[in-house]
C-alpha cells in the first residue's frame, strides 16, 4: 500500500516561507476554489493556509539555536480526524494514504479540527468548510505536467531542498531512505496517530581533528627518525638545508 508523505529536513530549512506562499498560490488557484484571506494589507491579516512555517528558539542565550519548523497536515496513518467526521467528508484515500476533505460534503462543524492534535486543519471563514493540505493531489497525478513537476508545490518551491516527497511505504524511495538513514521522526508520537510526514533532525556539523591528522602517520620523518641536524659550519643554501 502506498503512503505518500513529506519528509522535512529541519537541518536544511532556512525559514524563508517559500513553501507557504507557493502552497497558497497553487491551492488558491485550483478547481476547489480560493483560500480565504481577510485584511491581507491591514493590521490583522488572517487567512486559510495549508502550510505554515513557525520559528522556535531552542536553548538559553547565548547557547541558542533557531529552528524553523514547517507545519502542515501530517497525513496520519491512523488519522483521528477521519472517524469523528459525521458526514464522511473527511476521508483517507486507500490508494495513496492522502487525507482529504470533500468540500461538497463538509458541514463546517469543526469537530475534525478538535480531533487533530496538530492543529493542521483550518476552516475557511468564507466558504465555511474545513480545509487542509491535500499534498497537491491535483498536481501530483497530472499527466499533462512534466514528470519532475508532479510534486507538491511546496516541495518544488523549497530553495534548499528541505522537503522530500515520496512513498514512505516503499523502502527504496528517497523519502524512506532519508527517514531511515537520517533519523526521521514523527510529531507527538504519544497519541499513536502515526503521522506519515516525518521530520529530519537538526545535526551539528563539526570537524574532529585527531593528532594523527596533524602529524601524518606515514610521514617519513617519523618513520626514519629526524635527519641529523647539519653542523653550523656546513654550507647551506637557505640556512636550513644542509648539503
Amino acid at each position, binding site marked *: 500500500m502506498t503512503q505518500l508523505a513529506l519528509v522535512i529536513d529541519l537541518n536544511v530549512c532556512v525559514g524563508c516561507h517559500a513553501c507557504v506562499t507557493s502552497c497558497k498560490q497553487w491551492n488558491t488557484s485550483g478547481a476547489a476554489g480560493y483560500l480565504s484571506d481577510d485584511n491581507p494589507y491591514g493590521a490583522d491579516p488572517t487567512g486559510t493556509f495549508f502550510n505554515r512555517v513557525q520559528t522556535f528558539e531552542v536553548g538559553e542565550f547565548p547557547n541558542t539555536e533557531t529552528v524553523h519548523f514547517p507545519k502542515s497536515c501530517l497525513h496520519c496513518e491512523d488519522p483521528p480526524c477521519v472517524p469523528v467526521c459525521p458526514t*464522511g467528508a473527511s476521508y483517507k484515500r486507500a490508494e495513496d494514504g492522502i487525507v482529504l476533505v470533500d468540500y461538497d460534503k463538509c*458541514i463546517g462543524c469543526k469537530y475534525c479540527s478538535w480531533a487533530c492534535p496538530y*492543529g493542521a486543519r483550518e476552516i475557511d471563514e468564507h466558504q465555511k468548510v474545513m480545509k487542509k493540505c491535500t499534498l497537491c493531489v491535483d498536481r501530483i497525478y497530472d499527466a499533462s505536467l512534466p514528470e519532475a513537476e508532479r510534486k507538491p508545490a511546496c516541495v518544488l518551491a523549497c530553495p534548499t531542498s528541505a522537503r522530500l516527497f515520496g512513498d514512505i511505504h516503499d523502502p527504496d524511495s528517497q523519502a524512506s531512505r532519508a527517514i531511515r538513514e537520517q533519523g526521521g521522526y514523527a510529531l507527538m508520537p504519544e497519541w499513536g496517530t502515526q503521522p506519515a510526514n516525518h521530520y529530519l533532525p537538526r545535526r551539528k556539523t563539526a570537524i574532529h581533528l585527531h593528532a594523527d591528522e596533524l602529524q601524518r602517520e606515514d610521514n617519513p620523518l617519523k618513520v626514519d627518525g629526524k635527519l641529523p641536524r647539519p653542523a653550523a659550519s656546513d654550507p647551506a643554501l637557505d640556512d636550513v638545508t644542509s648539503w
Partner: protein
Amino acid sequence: MCPAWSVILLTTLIGAGQGLFLALAGVDVFGEAPARFFVAGAAVALVLLAAGLAASFFHLGRPERAWRSAAMWRTSWLSREVIVLPAFMASVLAWGAAHHLGFSREAVVFLAAVGSLLAAALFLCTGMIYACLKFLQEWHTPLTPLNYTALGCASGLTAAAALAAWLHPPLAPAYAAAALVSGALAYLARLASLARNARLRPKSTLASAIGIKHPRITQIAQGAMGGSFNTREFFHGRPREVLRAVRWSFLALVFPAPAALLLFPQSLALLAAAFAAQYAGLIAERWYFFAEANHPQNLYYQAIA
C-alpha cells in the same frame, strides 16, 4: 478551547429536556398523574429539545447540509447524536400524543420505555463526543458522559418539580426531593472531574510537538501575524480570574442555590427560580467545561511573532 454558545445551549437545553422526560416517564410508569400533566410535560420537553436542536445549527458553517451528518454513525459519536436526537424527539412527541389521545396503558408505558432508552443513549452520545477525543485530556474520562447525564437529570427533575407545582401540586414535593438527591450526586461527580482535571499533566510538550529534545524551547513566530483559525478556535482568551469566577459561579448555581429553593416545593415561583438558577449555572458549567480543555495544538501557537 473557545466555548461556542451554540454548543453550550445545545447540550444544556437537550440535557434538561432529556432529564424532564425521564422524570415524567418515571412517574408515568411507576406512579400516577393526570394525562394533562404528561401532555404539558412532553410539550415543555419538546420545546427544550427543539431549542437545543435549533441552537446546534448555529454551530455549523453549512447548516443546509446538516442532513449529511447522519451518514457516519458507525464511527462518529456526533453522527450518532444527530440520529438519536430527532428519534428521541419523535418518541417524546409520540408519548405526549399517546397521553393526549388516551392510548392504552401498555402503549403509553411502551413509548415511555422507548423514550427513556433513547434519552439515555442521547446522554451517552453527547458525552462521548467530547470523551472520545483522547488528547483532550480534560474530557477523555468516563466522568464526561457521567456529568452530562447527571447534570441533565438534575436540571430535568428541577424542571419537573416546577411543572408539577404548576399543574399537579401533589407531585411537587417528590420531584423536589428527587431533584435534590440527583443534584447532590451530579455535584459530587462534577467536583470529582474538577479535582481530576486539576491534577492532570499534559502528555504533549513543546519538545514532543516539534520533536526536539530540549527542556527550554520558546516560540518566536507562529507563521501568521494576525492570528488564524487555530488561535481563534482553541483559545478562550480570557484571563485566569474570569475562569475562576465562572467556576465559582457554576459551583454556587448548579446545586447550592437551587437546593435552597427546592426546600419549598409548594411555591411555583421558588421552584421556577430554582430551575432558572440551575440552568444559568449549567450554562456557566458548560462554558467552563470548554474553556478548561487545553488542546495540544495550542503548543504550536504560543507566540504571534
